[in-house]
């Protein structure tokens, strides 16, 4: 089995690489391990009391000090004269550890030696006494990659190793460790390192290396590292490699990719106002300047997010310069919450899989938002069927926006559009509700906002009094149907011809167009269908209802249900184009 040895900076051949900072500044005493005080204190006490456990499991995210602490522990237990649990750094044993020459620390890479054979070798090795110190320490790194057989082969040894052996298992993925292993170890969970501790450490390293960072620079670096000290030190190293030893805040911001391009704001504004031309222009400009599109979209999304925060009055502490904050405030002031949410949704879901560097996915996502074009498969079944249905539900006044960038040419284009077979109903239905419906579906604004109500899916026979409950149920009917389909396919199918007729307290009367459907709902399979509908109602509305199915003839007379019109798809469309006329059943 191969042994990996940390090399000392002094030993590195002059011609070779200088050690990167995260290796050069690897802590050598428990006291130097930042942000893990509870763990290091426990271990020091164990060393000082002479009672180290025979097996430890160190888990935690990358760069939090697992391997480092393991090495220090190995050094401390073998130190000739430990002081309060800390290695003295002067005895021959400590020196050999610092030089990476210690024979009693056996560091194994479980990820490349993950089989049962390697573990058998290891078990045989445990029988021999340590060469110089008191303990032989096996530090098994990336232990989550061991195979199941290898883990099981380790169990007996791990439970009762010879008295001179200490096992330290380290991993970033503790959930992959079998419970039988975990229960035999003392487990320490390394936490992400706090911002202040990270700042303290990188400052110390920066000062030691003679770097000069503008005030606040270390904090930026630490923030970007999200709790991993190795990431923080590595970022510092990279910044110095790019910009030299003295760094201004601007260097750091651009090096960390924190500079928000002014075009990102233009794009954000265009997404909120649905200005197709301005948005595409901003995207083109960003791409032509060689900005990575994914990063750009991320910036736009974060700008939109901050605008949302401002809009909600929660933007006290923005990590922004004054000019940027001002820009966002104007953006937020001129926009509706629902518009910002819709923009966030559209751009936050851009899927770059497959072409990570192409701007097209971003363009499609944005243009879909701006033109209100929802893919055919995602169109909700509730295409407005009859004008009165749309008129019955109060539509939210649409915010003024540029539907089309070139109004002068618009009429000329309108004509061929209505002839397109995609939208057979386009000539009767005004454009506004059509654009509104998919928008409402994609925006799904928070309940506080007045919600644009989707038109009822059926042409209702009567325009009489509707109670609040009834209106609510009719508006939610699509959701009920979707929920029912998930619970019981048959129930969902039956609901295609049914609609809420009336509501009395907790009793919902559901009207069906066909008599036999009523029977099916009432009796089929011991009332399973009815239960499914009731469950769907409670899922969609959050209230408990009982369902009473009735025959509702007028519903039938209102013509073919729109569900059929929209679900017919290409085949029906094509048949109609060829002259077919849909028949009433």
């Amino acid at each position, binding site marked *: 089995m191969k042994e990996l040895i940390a090399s000392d900076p002094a*030993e590195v051949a002059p011609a070779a690489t200088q050690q990167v900072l995260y290796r050069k500044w690897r802590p050598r005493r428990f006291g130097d391990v930042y942000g893990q005080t509870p763990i290091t204190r426990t271990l020091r006490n164990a060393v000082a009391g002479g009672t180290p456990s025979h097996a430890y499991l160190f888990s935690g995210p990358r760069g939090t000090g697992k391997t480092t602490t393991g090495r220090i522990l190995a050094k401390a237990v073998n130190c000739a004269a430990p002081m309060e649990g800390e290695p003295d750094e002067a005895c021959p044993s400590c020196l050999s550890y610092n030089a990476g020459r210690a024979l009693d620390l056996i560091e194994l890479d479980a990820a490349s030696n993950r089989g049962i054979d390697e573990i058998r070798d290891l078990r045989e090795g445990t029988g021999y006494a340590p060469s110089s110190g008191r303990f032989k320490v096996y530090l098994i790194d990336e232990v989550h990659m061991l195979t199941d057989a290898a883990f099981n082969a380790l169990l007996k040894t791990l439970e009762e190793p010879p008295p001179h052996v200490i096992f330290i298992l380290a991993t970033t993925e503790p959930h992959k460790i079998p419970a039988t292993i975990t229960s035999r170890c003392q487990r320490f969970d390394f936490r992400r390192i706090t911002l202040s501790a990270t700042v303290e450490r990188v400052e110390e390293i920066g000062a030691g290396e003679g770097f000069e960072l503008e005030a606040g620079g270390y904090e930026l670096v630490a923030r970007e590292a999200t709790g991993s000290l190795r990431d923080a030190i590595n970022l510092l190293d990279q910044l110095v*490699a790019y910009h030299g030893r003295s760094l201004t805040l601007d260097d750091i911001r651009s090096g960390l990719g924190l500079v928000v391009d002014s075009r990102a704001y233009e794009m954000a504004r265009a997404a909120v106002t649905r200005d*197709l031309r301005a948005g595409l222009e901003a995207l083109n400009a960003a791409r032509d300047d060689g900005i*990575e599109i994914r990063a750009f979209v991320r910036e736009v999304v974060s700008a939109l997010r901050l605008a949302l925060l401002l809009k909600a009055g929660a933007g006290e502490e923005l990590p922004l310069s004054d000019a940027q904050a001002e820009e966002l405030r104007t953006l937020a002031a001129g926009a509706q919450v629902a518009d910002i949410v819709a923009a966030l949704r559209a751009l936050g879901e851009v899927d770059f899989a*497959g072409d*990570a560097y192409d701007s097209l996915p971003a363009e499609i996502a944005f243009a879909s938002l*701006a033109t209100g074009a929802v893919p055919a498969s995602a169109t909700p079944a509730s295409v407005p069927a009859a004008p009165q249905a749309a008129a019955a539900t109060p539509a939210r006044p649409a915010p003024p926006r540029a539907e089309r960038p070139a109004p002068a040419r618009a009429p000329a284009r309108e004509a061929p*559009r209505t002839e397109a077979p995609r939208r057979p109903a386009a000539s009767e239905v005004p454009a506004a509700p059509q654009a509104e419906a998919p928008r409402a579906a994609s925006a799904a604004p928070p309940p506080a906002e007045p919600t644009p109500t989707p038109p009822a899916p059926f042409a209702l026979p009567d325009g009489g009094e509707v109670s609040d409950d009834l209106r609510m149920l009719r508006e939610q009917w699509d959701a009920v149907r979707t929920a029912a389909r998930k619970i019981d396919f048959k129930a969902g199918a039956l609901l295609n011809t049914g609609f809420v007729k009336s509501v009395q307290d907790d009793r919902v009367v559901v009207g069906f167009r066909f008599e036999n459907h009523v029977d099916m709902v009432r009796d089929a399979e011991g009332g399973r269908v009815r239960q499914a509908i009731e469950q769907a109602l409670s899922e969609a509305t959050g209230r408990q209802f009982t369902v009473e199915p009735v025959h509702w003839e007028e519903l039938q007379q209102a013509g073919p249900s729109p569900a059929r019109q929209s679900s017919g798809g290409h085949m029906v469309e094509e048949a109609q184009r060829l002259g077919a006329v849909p028949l009433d059943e």
Partner: protein
Amino acid sequence: MSTDATPTDASDAPAPSGPQASEAPWGIVGHDHAVGALRRAVEAGRLAHAYLFTGPPGAGKGALATRLAQALSCDTPAEDSAPCLVCRSCRQVEAGESPDIERIRIGGVCDESGHPDHSGDRSTRIRICQVRRVERVASLAPFRSRRRIFVIDTADDLQTEAAHALLKTLEEPPPTVLLLMLATDGDALLPTIRSRCQEIALRPMPAPALEAALVAHAGIAEHEARELSALAQGRYGLAMRMHADPSLRVLRETAAEEMARLVLADRNERFDAAETLAQRWTRERDSVLATLDTWRGWWRDVLQVTAGLEGGVISESARAASEACAPRDAVLALQAIQRAREHLLANTNAQLVLEVLMLDLPVLAGKEARGLATPAG
């Protein structure tokens, strides 16, 4: 997964060398910043032990790795540590014959007695046994130069087990080892891998700079350079490859003509086209994907024009089509093509996918669209 984007190609398209490239440091076009950082590190002896070069295929990751290797092993380096590119070791590196430089890619030698070589066995990832070999070879002293260099080409291809197996070596390799990881996307790698490397991002070049570079370094005529730079999205290597391979261009033009025809065609004609394409899919996937890519580009042009944007290179047929449709039609077409592409890559029935695509494409009619019937080039 587009045809123009295979990882092996990236390394085969190093930037131009020789006298023409004199202004570009190390002969790498468009990444002065990255080259500058590496050069300073080499001069100051502050080179890290592991670098991660990220960037799209054709951006120059492989070329940068090759140049860095040459700079480190050149017998007669220039003052600014630029490799001479003519000495024996530089030529060896260029040809991939240097004993101290090993390129790890899908299919290659490994360390297991049972299967010593993966070149012929249809591996689709870099295997753990190949990484074990890196570990073993890394501990040996270099033959000729002072350093042993491993180029992982690309880290995207590492099997999960292989990636984990690399971690320890990547963190603390022997002092004579330099690891260069190439990757399309740093975000897609294990965070534990990324955190151990110094990352150098190769960003796409600004379009005008790419155009100028194509003219200055490769001697490409200006009008072609403009077109190439629009298509290559800021990647020098990709632009050069498109320049060198005229068949790509022919394919592109045929596909654009086909789309211009299809938007006017009736359903029968469209179904015929779907069938032809579906048959092609079984034999040559890449060319079908390239066709879809061209169609996306064509509709993208339409979208740009209908949105009132000019600029860039816009094909004539797309311009004519844009007279007859609204931005919304273009968006729906783009969505349809994108969806078809995803489904094809997910192994859905090709004919079905393509027929649905044909049905989803808008049908253009009317007076304006008739301009399309007589293609204007």
